[in-house]
């Protein structure tokens, strides 16, 4: 039950994109087409779960044990960067179909603050291993949900006539605001 509550709160209430403002660059960058949005969402889910678990291990064993917390930023980003590189090479060799789907999004994930941000939040909230796993997956799922919803709306907007100064990113941000507003309705749930 506790895990379900945690999952709901991470997906809907503290949605990483709309409530915590993490990962907005890929949110606006890859949401112009449904296909790219789905690809990005899958890639983020894949990497975030791995990154959450790995950074938790790195933080708990070497860093906290030897009082090296000031190296957290440096070590987390290196873990994430090498993890992304590793995942890319692994997928290319063993699951080429998945690789061709996620391929171009993987390098972008290194600088996706949703990944790093979620890892830092896990540490800040002092989750244990299982909580980290659930929270990482839920944050990523929340990211995917918001991204895919947003891409759907954005495809429709592009069919209409948008005033020129508002075009593209500008109307995108206003739309994101509206989605964030509707996610506000989940606030009292947990």
């Amino acid at each position, binding site marked *: 039950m506790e895990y379900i509550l945690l999952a709901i709160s991470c997906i809907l209430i503290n949605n990483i994109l709309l409530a915590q403002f993490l990962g907005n660059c890929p949110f606006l960058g890859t949401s112009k087409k449904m296909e790219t949005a789905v690809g990005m969402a899958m890639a983020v889910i894949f990497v975030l779960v791995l990154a959450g678990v790995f950074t938790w291990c790195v933080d708990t064993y070497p860093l906290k044990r030897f009082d090296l917390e000031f190296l*957290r930023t440096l070590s987390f980003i290196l873990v994430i960067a090498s993890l992304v590189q590793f995942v890319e090479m692994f997928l290319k060799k063993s699951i080429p179909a998945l690789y061709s789907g996620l391929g171009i999004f993987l390098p972008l994930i290194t600088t996706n603050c949703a990944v790093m941000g979620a890892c830092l939040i896990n540490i800040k909230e002092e989750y244990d291993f299982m909580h980290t796993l659930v929270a990482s997956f839920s944050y990523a799922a929340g990211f995917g949900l918001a991204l895919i919803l947003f891409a759907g709306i954005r495809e429709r907007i592009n069919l209409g006539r948008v005033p020129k100064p508002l075009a593209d990113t500008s109307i995108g941000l206003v739309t994101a605001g509206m989605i964030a507003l509707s996610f506000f309705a989940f606030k009292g749930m947990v």
Partner: protein
Amino acid sequence: MAKSITQEFTKGLWAEVPPFRLVLGLCPTLAVTTKVENGIGMGLATTFVLVGSNILVSMLRNVIPSKVRIACFITIIATFVTIVQLLMQAYTYSLYLQLGIFIPLIVVNCIVLGRAEAFASKNSVILSIADALGIGIGYTLSLAAIAMVREALGAGTITLFGKSFVLFGHAFMPFTFMVQAPGAFICLGLMLCIMNMLGSK
């Protein structure tokens, strides 16, 4: 590439000012601009990291092999972010608490990596410093501008150097929507629209 130092500096202030013209570094732009003070603090921290990493990347640009350059850049940036983090923890502790995880997240701010990759890895140290200062100051000013709109409408105050200046009289009802998450998106979207209108003339 025969641009002068002043040109490299001033392009960051208007022509390529980060969150508006280059739509990069949006996360801190949206998250920390609930108070003017936070916006400026975040902007200055980012500027420091930008200048530091641009100098180092530019000095090492002939040494770093191009295959592992991104990893090297990120390591350099992360080092400077750690420096900023420790400095802020020591000297501006309340700001450090307010900005929270967004200080370590400067590492993944696309502006910093973008400048290292697009500019500093190809240009001399002096030009890179000018570029970093320009972009950094432009970013700081933009954050301050967004924060000013949001704080003035959302709370009716402007917070600077730990003091809150009340702008309106007692009859003013704060429009709290602006300092909450949806307001951030809509405010930035509308400001972007105004920038587009000004720019197209």
